[in-house]
């Protein structure tokens, strides 16, 4: 029997049991679609996080005071304080390194902002003009510490604060009071929303000197460093460590985190999560395979007489095996294709419902979904097909 004939004959068999075949295809399609939609979700989340991270800055090093023996666990360094300060002088030393394009010292605190008869507590970022480009922030209006105004008491308001305090008037040029000091609003940030647990819409940015006097401190919370290029990140990290060790009397008491390292960790975790979810969804493909096996066994049973006849008119065992094998293949192929379409459609709906989530199913997931479906179908057909092929023609013909 030629291949086209085998394909056609088994296709006819499938079409003659329409409802049954539809249900099997539906079951298979469900599994494939689940794999595709869930990986789209997982990979979308991964891309979302990666995008968010790169929106925070590129080629970024974060210098923070304190150091622990084990790099993973040092809540003190992240949350608390250390005896030795990281100072503005340290930041300037770092800024002079050849690998560094620009740097921004950072102090973070909370203070009360008041203006126009309103008052609220806000998060205050004290830094220099570089903070805005390094952190990829954008000003909707105005400027911050442009040349020539480096020492003036300027303040940049987050978008939400600007609209809260000055709902009807232009915020730029207004005077506000932060703690005990007066500031001139010089800029307003673009409305950004929450990103990585940090909402820039409700912060204010002031020059670092004012921030340090406001919080009565000489130590820095962080120094953000932008390196010239990606390839220089490692050498820059080492240079920063060496420079500050020298400046701190040979004490190795700062930590430098590269954005790449954090990003890689997140990327790895979310990738593993996507894989796990895809694996769980793939269990349903095995269930669909069991279903195909079951129905094919029933089909062999129902078509025993037909198999006997085919043998009587000269079909070889291989012909019969191939017929049932191809039948299962048709079913799983149809399930895989329909599942693929359903899955892509589901991902489309996801992207439609959550525009900020790039929910595209990765190619490997679509391929894996289809291939697992086909393999499940093929494995499922082996037992029924060999049963059919082994049937004794005389008994098969005798059976109604």
């Amino acid at each position, binding site marked *: 029997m030629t291949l086209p004939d085998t394909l056609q004959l088994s296709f006819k068999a499938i079409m003659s049991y329409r*409802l*049954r075949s539809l*249900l*099997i295809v*539906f*079951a298979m399609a*469900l*599994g494939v679609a*689940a794999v595709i939609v*869930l990986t789209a979700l997982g990979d979308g989340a991964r891309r979302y996080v990666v995008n968010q991270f790169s929106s925070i800055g590129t080629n970024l090093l974060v210098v923070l*005071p*304190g*150091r*622990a*023996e*084990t790099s*993973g*666990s*040092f*809540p*003190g360094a992240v949350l*608390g*304080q*250390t*005896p030795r*300060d990281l100072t503005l002088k340290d930041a300037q030393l770092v800024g002079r390194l050849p690998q560094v394009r620009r740097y921004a010292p950072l102090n973070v605190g*909370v*203070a*009360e902002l*008041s203006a126009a*008869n*309103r*008052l*609220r*507590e806000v998060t205050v970022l004290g830094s220099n003009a570089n903070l805005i480009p390094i952190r990829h922030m954008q000003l909707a209006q105005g400027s911050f510490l442009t040349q020539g105004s480096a020492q003036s008491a300027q303040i940049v308001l987050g978008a939400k604060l600007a609209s*809260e305090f000055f709902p009807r008037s232009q915020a730029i040029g207004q005077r506000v*009071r932060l*703690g*005990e000091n007066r500031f001139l609003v010089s800029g307003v940030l673009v409305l950004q929303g929450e990103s990585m647990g940090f909402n820039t819409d409700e912060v204010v940015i002031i020059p670092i000197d004012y921030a340090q006097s*406001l919080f009565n401190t000489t*130590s820095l919370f962080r120094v953000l460093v932008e390196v010239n290029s990606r390839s220089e990140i490692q050498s820059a990290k080492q240079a920063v460590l060496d420079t500050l060790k020298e400046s701190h009397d040979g*004490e190795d*008491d700062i930590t430098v985190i590269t954005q790449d390292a954090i990003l890689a960790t997140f990327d790895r975790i979310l990738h593993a999560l996507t894989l796990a*979810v895809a694996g*769980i*969804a793939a*269990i*349903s*493909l*095995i*269930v*669909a395979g*069991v*279903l195909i*096996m*079951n*129905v094919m*066994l*029933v089909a062999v049973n*129902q078509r025993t007489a037909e198999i006997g006849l085919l043998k009587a008119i000269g079909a070889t065992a291989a012909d019969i095996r191939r017929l049932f094998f191809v039948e299962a293949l048709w079913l799983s192929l149809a399930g895989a294709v329909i599942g693929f379409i359903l899955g892509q459609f589901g991902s489309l709906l996801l992207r439609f419902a959550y525009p900020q989530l790039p929910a595209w199913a990765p190619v490997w997931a679509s391929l894996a979904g289809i291939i697992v479906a086909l393999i499940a179908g093929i494995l499922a057909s082996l037992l029924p097909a060999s049963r059919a092929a082994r049937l004794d023609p005389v008994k098969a013909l005798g059976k109604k």
Partner: protein
Amino acid sequence: MNTIDTFHFVFRSLTAHRLRTILSASGIAIGIAAVILLTSIGEGVQRFVLSEFTQFGTNIVTITPGKVSTHGGSLGAIGSARLLTIEDAIALKHSRYTQYTNASVMGNAEIRTQGRSRRVTVYGQGPDFSRAFNMQVGIGQFLPDDDPRNPRAYVVLGSKAHTELFGGDNPLGAILQVGGSRFRVIGVMASKGQILDFDLDDTVFIPTMRALEVFNREGLMEINIAYQPGAPVEAVVDDIKRVLVARHGREDFTVIPQQQMLSTMSTVLNVLKFAVAALGGISLLVGAVGMVTLMHIAVAERVAEIGLLTALGATRTRIRILFLMESTALSTLGGLAGLMIGAGVAWLLKLLVSNLPVNIPWDYVLGALALSVLIGLAAGVIPAMRAAKLNPVDALRTE
């Protein structure tokens, strides 16, 4: 036809096609097993996280400085947010429900002794800290009940800090330098292990006031209050607010009862568990489609038998019940098998992978079982109706 006969009849139809019955049931079984295994891991993680958080006691309220909210209208007082101080903590000692108060600061510093040094997390805590948080002291004692404004320079070591710096030696009485100051060791804590990657043993505890000096800092990071068990949380929070507002003039702090945190966390974990169950449910759904297919085939295959039963005087209701029971029995069987597989694998995981928390959630188990019965019923409905509607004459003729 009585119930026992019905059961017997259904049993015979199921055993007539043994392989088919096993395969159909295994579709459901895999789905149920997936749901149970996944929710077992989910439940295990939930319990693990909650127990990690409640090991310090649940009757704790934490006060942190600062409050975020916009006030409209005019307010006279303007100034930077006030710090939480030791005095605030002392004042709260006299709140009605307070059992213990603890003023807390935390940071990272180098500690040195006998030529060895190490960077550890330094906690500035009050003398009641160990009691409020159920921390056990291994050797010696915890920080003594000194005047919180001028405590003596004692230090208590975490167990890892102890072994790293002193090895097996008894450290009591030794002098330890923390940052720039010198402290005398008076105790070692019992090992506490790690919480979510925070090593609680690689620490030292010094009096709060001394820690503020080490870190050159004025305000506390938080004040913890352990209230009397059984006291109403709202009253505790109100009383704390009253005391602090009287001192600060306004509410420039945030009060978080641990119970609130716990319930938030619990809600999040519950949602996660449900999501995981839903993931497993996909397989169950596919298994359900399989059931529908099989019951549909069973009716088509047994048309003659149905005709015969009708001819012998079976009512339509009886035929419907027979098919419904067949599919329900099948799916329940699958559900039970899945339950055993899922629980078995969960149990094995618990044995083999020691740091993976696994716990079988019985509500989900019962839910899954009920679901498998329902799937059987639902899968049987349409085929059973079709079987019942068959015309006996036509049905008999098909043979």
